[in-house]
């Protein structure tokens, strides 16, 4: 375990070593880390937070690489938080998103941090919010959060990003997929990436139709459906423009923006409260968890009874 915690001042001063260590400590749930993150949260909230989500292989990392390139060209300091899945069997992970971003590796205006989801199922890691807080405190202008490759239900990004960009491809299914509930509903900007693929036009039409008939993600905002080819950079400027337009819409509709921010705060508070509960439950289970597991496996008891036994009777 990283034993020495950095100071909040070091993080605010832009010390990347300090920030790196604090994120590790937050991932491990060290109590000292929580106190630091709390201080940093109160002092933060300045950077733009952009979420990039989409199914595995849609081109998220390549798109992030291109977005970073354009934002750097504008002189913005950019951080990337890239989340990849953890093995449900061993807890290990191969975090490979940096491979597509190696062109920015030595750029002092770019910080990239890879995170393993560590069992979280909403497309991010439990500590992603803390990591955003730490990086925001360092003064980065833009923080791009790349989710794990998602299916339909992983929408934790909503609780953290100002704007959610969904990458889809021509192979994302037909019109009925487009009207199902889930990630498509919450996308503020949709890009059909790998636009050289046959079927792209059909996908764009299906998604455009879906968007036209749903409740807007923000009052006054019409989710654009764009064709992109991240490998060659085509259409990426249009995403940047759409992001800027979305922030402008934010400013034009302060009440709506506030409603969204309150919903985000609510989701984060609930997630943290649930984490506290999980820790307490684990602590309750510690004394005789082995016996409890054996009893359930041997059907001497059942999972409901075992769960009730974790709590002392009133």
């Amino acid at each position, binding site marked *: 375990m990283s034993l020495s915690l950095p100071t909040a001042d070091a993080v605010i001063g832009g010390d990347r070593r300090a920030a790196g260590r604090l994120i590790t400590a937050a991932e491990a749930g060290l109590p000292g880390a929580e106190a630091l993150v709390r201080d940093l949260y109160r002092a933060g909230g300045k950077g733009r937070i952009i979420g990039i989500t989409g199914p595995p292989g849609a081109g998220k990392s390549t798109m992030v690489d291109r977005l970073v390139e354009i934002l750097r060209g504008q002189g913005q300091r950019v951080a990337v938080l890239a989340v990849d899945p953890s093995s449900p069997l*061993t807890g290990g992970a191969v975090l*490979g998103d940096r491979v597509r971003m190696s062109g920015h*590796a030595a750029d002092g205006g770019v*910080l990239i941090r890879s995170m*393993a989801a*560590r069992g979280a199922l909403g497309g991010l890691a439990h500590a992603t919010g803390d990591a955003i807080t730490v990086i925001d405190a360092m003064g980065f202008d833009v923080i791009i959060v790349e989710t794990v490759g998602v299916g339909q239900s992983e929408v934790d990004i909503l609780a953290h990003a100002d704007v959610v960009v969904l990458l889809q491809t021509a192979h994302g299914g037909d019109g009925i997929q487009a009207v199902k509930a889930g990630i498509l509903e919450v996308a503020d900007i949709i890009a059909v990436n790998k636009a050289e693929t046959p079927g792209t036009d059909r996908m764009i039409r299906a998604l455009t139709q879906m968007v036209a008939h749903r409740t807007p993600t923000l009052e006054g905002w019409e989710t654009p459906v764009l064709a992109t080819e991240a490998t060659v950079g085509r259409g990426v400027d249009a995403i940047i423009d759409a992001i800027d337009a979305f922030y402008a819409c934010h400013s034009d509709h302060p009440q709506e923006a506030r409603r969204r921010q309150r919903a985000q705060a609510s989701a984060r508070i609930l997630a943290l409260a649930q984490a506290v509960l999980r820790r307490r439950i684990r602590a309750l289970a510690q004394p005789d968890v082995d016996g409890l597991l054996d009893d359930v496996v041997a059907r001497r008891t059942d999972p409901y009874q075992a769960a009730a036994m974790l709590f002392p009777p009133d």
Partner: protein
Amino acid sequence: MMVEEHLLETSRTVRCLLGMLGTDVHSKGIRTLAQILRDAGIEVIYLGEHNSVPGMAQAVVDEDADIVGLSFSSAAYLDYTRQFIEAMRERGVGDVPVMIGGLIHPDDHAPLTDMGVAGIFGPGSTTSAIIDFVLTRGGAPR
């Protein structure tokens, strides 16, 4: 069973940065190693091939890696390793152990150790020895 939801406490997670420097293109070995380490419960930050010395050294800082693995199949590993360890020290992460693997000649073990390499896994190294090294050295308090 999802690890995070497991009733038993899980142990500390080791983060291991793996990559290749320069023009080396034989990434099969390091890719296989990434998977083996994953299966041992390690979080591998995989950088692939064609990394620059400053870029990879900066990644050690930003990723807060516990241990670094470099793979080489070309003869330039002495130079690259020296530059890399120097770049790590300049960034204040000279304490992070570095292991190297690939086609490493036995005659070069002594100079590599002298420049600060913590582990050398040449041809014939077993995966269990590498896993053990990563967990022990990467999992040590620092």
